[in-house]
């Protein structure tokens, strides 16, 4: 009897659960459909209502082909956690729309000047106002109220690519090529998406000052492999002075360690017999290289300096120089320790070029010296070399 009643209770609760969950499912469905319908038409009217008083004069449909809504919508992006720091920092700067007298975030004053300020021609406009005006948006001239707001979501590369494919966001952030993320062909990707590269993720090889001064300013990929696998142990073997090599690696199993093994040593589980010390953080690596003679290491570019010199690496006959204006540089995408950080936009009927004016205004910000230094390099990523910056700018629509 006791068992029976227990069973009964169980079935009752299960039935209750089923009822409850199906109700929840219906509610969820309702929410979904509500959302999707609102996506198609509601926000345009909503935003028109709310934004109308402030931005009646700014009518970007005159300049851009996308002309369904009367006011520019919020620019949305989401995806890779690797691209996120760059895009999100840019977005935060954009949304605050700092005045040119700020000095720290935009413009210049007695105390400080943002990098690349003179190159921009020291415009007398707020941050987002300036970049938006390049693509025909009217300046708002108010704090925290740019011509259009931007929002960056955080998920994964694959999710970002899917979201931009399905039109859920304007920009899909991805640390891998969209062909791999969505499993599509090169031609299909070229037809439907525009690939904008903001910066690169990578690890230049660095040596300590004494080694650099003794004349080791470049190594071949093979030499680096031999050094890390204990086949070369003295700098004199690669044209330097007579000094044993102090080989610095990163914590075993970390992402940096794995990608170095994979790209430089041949496989993700390649041996690293020659490593004398392993450090977990870029700062520690930089200090160790600075404090010791004969050191070699790999680390984020932002921590290099006169005491910690990035060197050129020769792969298969091509020398990648640590110089932004060289023909092949360690900032290039085909430098084996680098990978591109992408922002994908879609080709639609409204924007046959693939990049509408809002996207162009926002992304152009990253392609200036200002954006490359503050958003890319300060986040420990590798800024684009000059020729790539030009190529990326050419992908954007022409400026107003």
């Amino acid at each position, binding site marked *: 009897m006791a068992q029976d009643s227990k069973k009964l209770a169980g079935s009752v609760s299960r039935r209750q659960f089923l009822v409850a969950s199906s109700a929840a499912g219906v509610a969820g469905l309702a929410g979904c459909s509500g959302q999707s319908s609102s996506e198609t038409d509601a926000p345009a009217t909503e935003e028109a209502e709310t934004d109308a008083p402030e931005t009646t004069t700014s009518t970007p449909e005159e300049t851009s082909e996308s002309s369904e809504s009367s006011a520019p919508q919020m620019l949305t992006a989401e995806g890779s956690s690797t691209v996120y720091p760059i895009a999100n920092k840019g977005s935060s700067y954009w949304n605050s729309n700092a005045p040119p007298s700020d000095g720290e975030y935009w413009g210049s004053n007695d105390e400080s000047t943002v990098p690349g300020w003179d190159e921009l021609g020291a415009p007398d406009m707020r941050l987002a106002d300036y970049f938006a005006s390049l693509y025909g948006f009217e300046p708002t001239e108010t704090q925290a109220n740019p011509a259009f707001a931007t929002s960056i979501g955080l998920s994964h590369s694959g999710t970002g690519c899917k979201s931009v494919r399905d039109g859920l966001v304007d920009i899909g952030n991805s640390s891998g090529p969209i062909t791999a993320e969505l499993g599509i062909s090169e031609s299909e990707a070229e037809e439907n998406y525009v690939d904008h590269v903001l910066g690169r993720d990578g690890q230049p090889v660095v040596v300590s000052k004494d080694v650099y001064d003794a004349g080791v300013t470049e190594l071949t990929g093979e030499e680096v492999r031999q050094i890390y696998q204990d086949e070369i142990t003295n700098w004199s073997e690669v044209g330097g002075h007579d000094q044993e090599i102090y080989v610095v690696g990163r914590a075993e199993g970390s992402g940096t360690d794995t990608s170095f093994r994979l790209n430089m040593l041949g496989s993700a589980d*390649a041996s690293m017999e020659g490593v004398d010390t392993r450090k977990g953080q870029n700062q520690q690596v930089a200090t160790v290289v600075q404090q010791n003679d004969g050191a070699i290491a790999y680390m984020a570019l932002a921590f290099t300096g006169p005491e910690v010199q990035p060197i050129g690496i020769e792969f298969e006959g091509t020398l990648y120089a640590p110089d932004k204006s060289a023909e092949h540089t360690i900032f290039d995408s085909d430098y084996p320790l680098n990978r591109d950080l992408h922002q994908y936009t879609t080709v639609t009927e409204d924007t046959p070029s693939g990049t509408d004016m809002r996207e162009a205004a926002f992304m152009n910000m990253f392609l200036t010296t200002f954006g490359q230094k503050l958003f890319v390099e300060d986040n420990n990523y590798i800024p684009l070399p000059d020729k790539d910056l030009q190529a990326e700018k050419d992908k954007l629509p022409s400026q107003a």
Partner: protein
Amino acid sequence: MNVLPNSDGAGLRAAARRGLRRGRDFVDETPPDALVTVTVAAVSLLAAFAGFLAVSSLTAVPFAVFLVATGYGWLRHQELTARVLTLTTTVSTILVLGLILVFIFAEAWPTVQYATVNVFGVPIPGLRLFIETRWSPVTPPIRYSLVPMIHGTVLVTIIATAVAAPLGVAAALFLSEIAPRTVREVVKPGVEILAGIPSIVYGFIGFTILSPWAADQFDIVGQGTYLFVGIVVGLMALPTVVSVAEDALNSVPESMKSGSLALGTTDWQTMTSITLPAAFSGVSAAVLLGVGRAIGETMAATVMLRGSPELTKPLYNVFYGNDTLTSLIAANYGDADGLQLSALFVAGVILFVTVLFLSIGSQYIEARMRRKLGGAD
């Protein structure tokens, strides 16, 4: 052989009967109201613990019942409730310790199992952790030998003891027997404050100043030597040694020293032949405590050492410092996963067992000292 278990059984039975009688007396004497309150509190706390283990969202309910019951008990039957509460705190301390132990051992188990070696057909789990010297969590063959780290810990501990023991005991002797009162009253608290300096401060000085200097002076490839880590850790352990050893020397009865002096010995002779031998076990306990600190020291070792686990060549070479058990955990916990993470727990288990034996040892010595000197009175 047959007699012992029988007598044991009889003893047990008698003890059980005594306990039962005491329990019955307790129930008879306590008012039923109080008894119910305490029982409700105990049962609800047990239920809350069970809920906690089962990660139930209803854990809060029995815990609330426990709080209400103890609150009521505190107002109505304060004495009994206080007794139960203090018992509860003691039990929960032991319980928390036990849970931590179980967790560490459970987490360590996969690597121990991975390192199973067959000896004459008998599988011995974990043996390979100690008979090989290869630590290689990424490159095959993947091995998690802890021998290099144990070697590092032993070297650092020996050097640290060599620094802390003579300096510490000498300083304690001076403070306790030679120094004037005013000096002792100023210096002793000062030494104890020294013990509170965070270890990262020592480590930072070691990393930025001592290590590069040592690498330069001894012509070492790169920085990081057991020698200087040992010295720094020894200095860190010094205040502990001084403080505990001074207490031990102080606790030698004045009558023993006076008796010796009355026989015509000098102060120094009294110190070396009476005070030190009498306090020997206490001084050893002080050194052992210092050693315990040296073994467990993490921050200074992690920033100063190289973090590439391998044995030095030759084994007694202290000019290269690779890794200790603690620095291995501190340097790798962020990036490790799977078996590597489990191997770090094995390092934790080894540390735990070592420090456990050290503290039991020092407590045993202290107890012996108290017996010996207590008997002299």
